[in-house]
């Protein structure tokens, strides 16, 4: 079943075309890899899908909704969550509060609703968040023992996991991961792959940007390749590995030199 489709998606920054006429689809339950050399427009594409900024033209359909003009928080409430290449955890909040902030049921109550609830409610009765669920998520990513720690004190690898737990707390159907393995050592890498697999096992569709080929070839069912903002290839890991255009994009002139 189709979950998301982009049509002629394009984004300019001034005169620079960061994403150029990109069409692709995601099916429910897939893990799709998004690769390409530095500056290929991968992160820009994820920023478009998650509403950080709108596309210059083109459309994004997510489960029957046109989301290309929606704001980030609206897109999240429709069921798309994400992590960031450079982590954006809430540093001065505890690990648990990072997840709880995401666990608030914002589909039910807006800011003024929460104000009224805070002032009139009795000792937290009827709060929309679920503490047990937050604890389960921390357990799931292996952060249970850090729950009271400030997020700024976490080592880098763990703050990446905290971002994943935070994203999951919003109960997404589609998770966008922007380089979840960057800066991790080999043993941390395996843990990360395991976590991503298990999230997918729970029925969450995943689009993942990754530079580490071991990770991307290992877990993606399908791979999309961007180069200078354009989609140059799409297929199974094996197909992509052998695609001459992809080899060309990654190795430039060197590939020819060898022949």
């Amino acid at each position: 079943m189709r979950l998301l489709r982009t049509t002629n998606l394009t984004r300019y920054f001034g005169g620079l075309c960061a994403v150029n006429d990109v069409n692709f689809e995601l099916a429910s339950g897939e893990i799709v890899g998004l690769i390409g050399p530095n500056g290929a427009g991968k992160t820009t594409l994820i920023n478009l899908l998650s509403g950080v900024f709108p596309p210059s033209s083109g459309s994004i359909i997510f489960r029957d909704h046109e989301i290309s003009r929606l704001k980030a928080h609206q897109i999240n409430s429709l069921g798309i969550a994400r992590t960031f290449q450079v982590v954006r955890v809430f540093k001065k909040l505890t690990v648990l509060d990072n997840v709880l902030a995401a666990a608030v049921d914002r589909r039910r109550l807006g800011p003024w609703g929460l104000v009224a609830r805070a002032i009139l409610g009795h000792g937290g009765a009827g709060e929309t968040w679920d503490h047990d669920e937050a604890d389960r998520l921390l357990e799931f990513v292996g952060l249970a023992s850090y729950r009271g720690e400030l997020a700024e004190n976490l080592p880098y690898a763990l703050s990446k996991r905290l971002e994943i737990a935070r994203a999951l707390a919003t109960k997404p159907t589609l998770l966008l991961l922007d380089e979840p393995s960057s800066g991790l050592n080999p043993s941390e890498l395996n843990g990360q792959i395991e976590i991503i697999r298990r999230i997918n096992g729970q029925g969450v569709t995943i689009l993942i940007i990754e530079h580490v080929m071991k990770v991307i070839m290992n877990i993606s069912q399908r791979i999309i390749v961007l180069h200078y903002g354009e989609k140059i290839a799409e297929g199974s890991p094996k197909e992509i590995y052998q695609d001459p255009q992809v080899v060309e994009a990654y190795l430039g002139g060197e590939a020819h030199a060898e022949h």
Partner: protein
Amino acid sequence: MSPRSYTRLKWALGAAALIALPLVVRDRYFLHLLVTAGIFVLLASSWNLLAGYAGQLNLGHAAFYGIGAYTSAILATKLGITPWLGLFAGGIVAALFGLMLGVPSLRLSGPYLAITTIGFSEILRLVAMNWVELTRGSLGLYGIPSFTPIRLGSWLQIEFRAEISSYYLLLVLVCMSLAIFQRLATSEFGLSLQSIREDETGAASIGVNISGYKLAVFTISAFFAGLAGAFFAHYQRLVSPDTLSLGETFTILTMTMLGGLGTLVGPVVGAVLLTFLSEGLRFVEDMVRLDVRMIIYGVLLIVTILFMRGGIVGLWNSLRTESRAEN
């Protein structure tokens, strides 16, 4: 004793002490200082909700205070409306201005927002100075009525001309406001505000409606500053454009930073401490004929920022964790 009932006992003792204080110390000047401190507690705590929790640097908070004061004063002197209604009218009109100032905060952040709020507050001060028919300009509005007496049956009547009854009225206002701040700060609403302070893009990615929360917190913060202003108008019975000055905002800011930005107790500690300190400095000022107060505030602010970011509350907490670690 369970920790919960221990906390309750502490609160009960604190409340009893605050209620008994004016009966024990009968000095009118001391009571006046307590009332002044109470007004600053409201101002610093409401500023803290906006700056400390939501991270929105508003340098025009005194404008809300002044709007509340002028609103209630004008309603009472020109239209004869009772101060009891004026009190809430002051809060509500300030809240509307808060909502208005919230709009630029949707697009501006950090220093740009700060400069905009300074502009906002200076414009309002100039309006108060120059709209003579309404505000009497720099002369200020005087002859503002006190809160009208409350009759309890035919035998008891509470007058608000004396400091002592004003003190009790303010005590009720401050306690109710602090209870609301406490509930807001520790709720899902408060956590959402903090997520905005920490990282707006991150907050939006988990569904936080940044614009909605910013407008809400600007409105709420302004309401309580306006409430403080309206109370002040009927207590002092004189309102002048000085109420809206940048110096006033600077005082509020210093109190909050010194006490502990982004904590519930910090602004209370800072407000009480600096109110009494600045009165202590008054006789020094008379001697050297110089505005020593602002110089001291400036020094305190710099020292706080350089050496104790968490303010007094932060320092206290870290000392307590250290002593616990030693045990």
